[in-house]
């Protein structure tokens, strides 16, 4: 039923995570195929961000299997995971405020890489990213800290792309930015998909998710409650009401 149409790149099985003594995630299993945009949805506190951080190795207490291109990454450190081609943009952006736009991009720089089948992954340079995000092109010497929220949101995505990732974990790209910027983010995701990247998106805004996603996993209280294609979610108002409700 709800399986990726392509071979899964990211495969998560029975993922559990804790903060201190509190368990946040319970036996999550899901996958993201090559070239797919998959949305993790659910309200705040459902565990979307924790899921992303767990995949990225940023949560110390975690258990379960996380496979990336058939390799078990559940014991690796964040930098090792990033070097396998998994990009991460955090929900709170985490721009280096003292560094300029250029320097922020440079921190994310990694060598070009290939997909498992030998096809080259898209290679990103500052020039290409400036074309993708024209706002950033206007301010290469601007300090990250003096940019607006929307600009920072673009920079954090651009910074991740500098690592030439195969799959990007995009945590709430539409949160806290103006509708105009949200639209630009949607456009960007569509462009990235065209480039062949896979994206795991965490999102609460169903209007946004509708524009970009292929499939959806719905979380509540750290558990997987529903999964299906975006079209199925669109048609199912009960599910929307139960877990999102506009």
């Amino acid at each position, binding site marked *: 039923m709800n399986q990726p149409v392509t071979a899964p790149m990211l495969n998560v099985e029975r993922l559990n995570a804790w903060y201190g*003594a509190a368990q946040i995630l319970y036996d999550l299993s899901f996958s993201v195929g090559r070239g797919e945009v998959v949305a993790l949805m659910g309200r705040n506190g459902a565990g979307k961000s924790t899921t992303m951080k767990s995949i*990225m190795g940023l949560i110390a207490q975690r258990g379960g299997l996380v496979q990336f291109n058939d390799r078990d990454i559940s014991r690796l450190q964040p*930098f090792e995971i990033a070097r396998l081609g998994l990009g991460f943009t955090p929900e709170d952006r*985490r721009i*280096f405020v*003292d560094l300029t736009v250029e*320097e*922020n991009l440079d921190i994310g720089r990694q060598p070009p890489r290939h997909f498992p089948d030998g096809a080259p992954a898209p290679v990103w340079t500052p020039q290409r990213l400036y074309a993708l995000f024209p706002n950033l092109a206007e301010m290469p010497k601007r300090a990250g800290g003096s940019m607006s929220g929307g600009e920072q949101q673009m920079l954090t995505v651009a910074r*991740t792309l500098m690592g030439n990732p195969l799959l990007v974990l995009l945590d709430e790209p539409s949160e806290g930015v103006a509708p105009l910027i949200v639209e630009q983010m949607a456009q960007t995701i569509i462009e990235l998909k065209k480039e062949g990247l896979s994206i795991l998106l965490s999102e609460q805004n169903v209007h946004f998710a509708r524009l970009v996603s292929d499939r959806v996993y719905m979380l509540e209280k750290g558990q997987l409650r529903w999964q299906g294609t975006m079209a199925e979610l669109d048609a199912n108002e009960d599910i929307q009401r139960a877990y999102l409700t506009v």
Partner: protein
Amino acid sequence: MTLNAFLFQALNGLSTASGLFLIAAGLSLIFGVSRIVNIAHGSLYMLGTYIAYTFATRIGGVTGFWGGIVATAIIVGIIGAAIEFVLLRRIYRAPELFQLLATFALVLVINDSALYLWGPEDLLGPRAPGLRDAIEVLGRRLPSYDLFLIFVGPAVLLVLHVVITKTRFGRLIRAATQDREMVGALGVNQAMLFTAVFALGSLLAGLGGALQIAREPANLATDLIAIGDAFVVVVVGGMGSISGAYLAAVLIAEVKALCIGLGVVDFGLMKINFTKFTLVAEFIVMAVVLIVRPYGLLGRPQGAVRSIAEAEEPIRPANVFVKALGIVVFAALLALPLFANYSPYLLVLGIDVLIAVLFAASLHFIMGPGGMHSFGHAAYFGLGAYGAALLVKWMAAPMGLALAFAPLAAFAGALLFGWFAVRLSGVYLAMLTLAFAQIIWAAVYQWEPITGGSNGVVGVWPPAPFNKATVYFLLALALTVPGVLLLRRLLFSPFGYAMRAGRDSPLRAEAIGIDVKRVHWLAFAIAGGICGIAGGLFAFAKGSISPETIHVGRSIDGLVMVLLGGLQTLTGPIVGASVFAVLQDTIMRSTVYWRALLGLVILFLVLIFPSGIVGTLVNLTRRIRLRRKAAT
């Protein structure tokens, strides 16, 4: 003083500034990236001097001297990297202050290692081959080695500046300074980066130390002096600003040089000996700078640094078990004099422990619930002790009056210093409190006619019946227990809540009408007053008080006690102080290398109890309870 003499002193100051800068730059780099206040940085500097001395004397000649300096810098860099790799890496997730405790333990270990390897004597290195002569400057002879040193500082500054602004390594350092976790998530091996930064910082310290061999002897007291100086320089310059560190180093060295140059100046009405100010010059500079520019000369307000420490539990009244335990302990203490016949030493130790408990509890009050990390709590201990002792010496006051005056003197001092201190936060507050403590210390040390200078005040013995250890112990108990209970009661009062509110979220606190600075100021003064009682008790217990007993070491002891017990629990400081006082007492009696042993014990405890002794026990019981709940 002539203009020439003045300028000559200024040149001298510049060569001193280079050494200060080297050590401060390394400290600043390491703090920036790892957020560790590395107290052992001064020890690395000291090691630099000793190792370079060994090269210069064993191998000798140009190779031994100049080659030795380079080799020393590299060796110390490697030692720094090893320290990071073996020890600090395990405690990055521990609270900031806990890391400080670990590095302090290293200070102890390194100091005794140096004592073992090089002995207690001062060791003066040979003069620098090629730079043995002196040149005529402004009618005086300036050693050409000093001239060389003048250029070392700016040269290193330039190199560092280029590295930090122009290279990828520098960009990574700056990025990691803000958010090291994110740097890791972008594919940078941050563990390697940390080790590299530690190596670089340590290398600078080693270089700074090594360059001193032709000027000053290697000495076992260098470590704490150097770290004190480096702290001051970093804070005055502004945390994280390398250029600021150089500017501050020059400023401080020049002020000191000026004091020496001025010597005794006759103002007609009175003569002032400015050379006496050299001891406190840097601290006065720091206090002035921090009051005018709270983030140092070139520093910026520290952004919110991602905290990975565990948040604190709400405070709850003691449960039946803790109350019962408290009563049992109190009863046991009351009964202690009964055993005094078997071991008279027991009571002396008991008095020491009680004083330590009161000292630590008052420090914990502002450090834990108040969030004000004072590095200079010894000041209020000293004000209490000297307040009481001087009253006895000059007014022949009875003990009761003197003991009542002790907290008042300390309260007044804390009220004065606290007004400035609460305007700052974090490391800056820590350093300013340290500066105030240093000023108190220097005042006591220098003001010989009143305080007896380095000899201190003697003959402060309690009258009968308190001259018997048994009775004095009970007196100490009668002051310590209410003192601790009072602090505890305050924590549960609206005032204590307001203090915690100001710590948890100053923004929210101000937005609901709390004058956070005022609340913290009063809390600071109250803690100072309570600490003064401990000081007064100490003076009468020992019969004397000297500047040595209120030096930086005592402030650090207080920190160790509080952290050892655990910052986040109310019983922590009591346990921490008791453990520390007993350890210190017993270890000191067992070996010459007691510092190293104490250091190792602290390291051991830090690694085993990452949240302090009591904190770890609390966490453990909570986890067991949760697991039981999960099982049912």
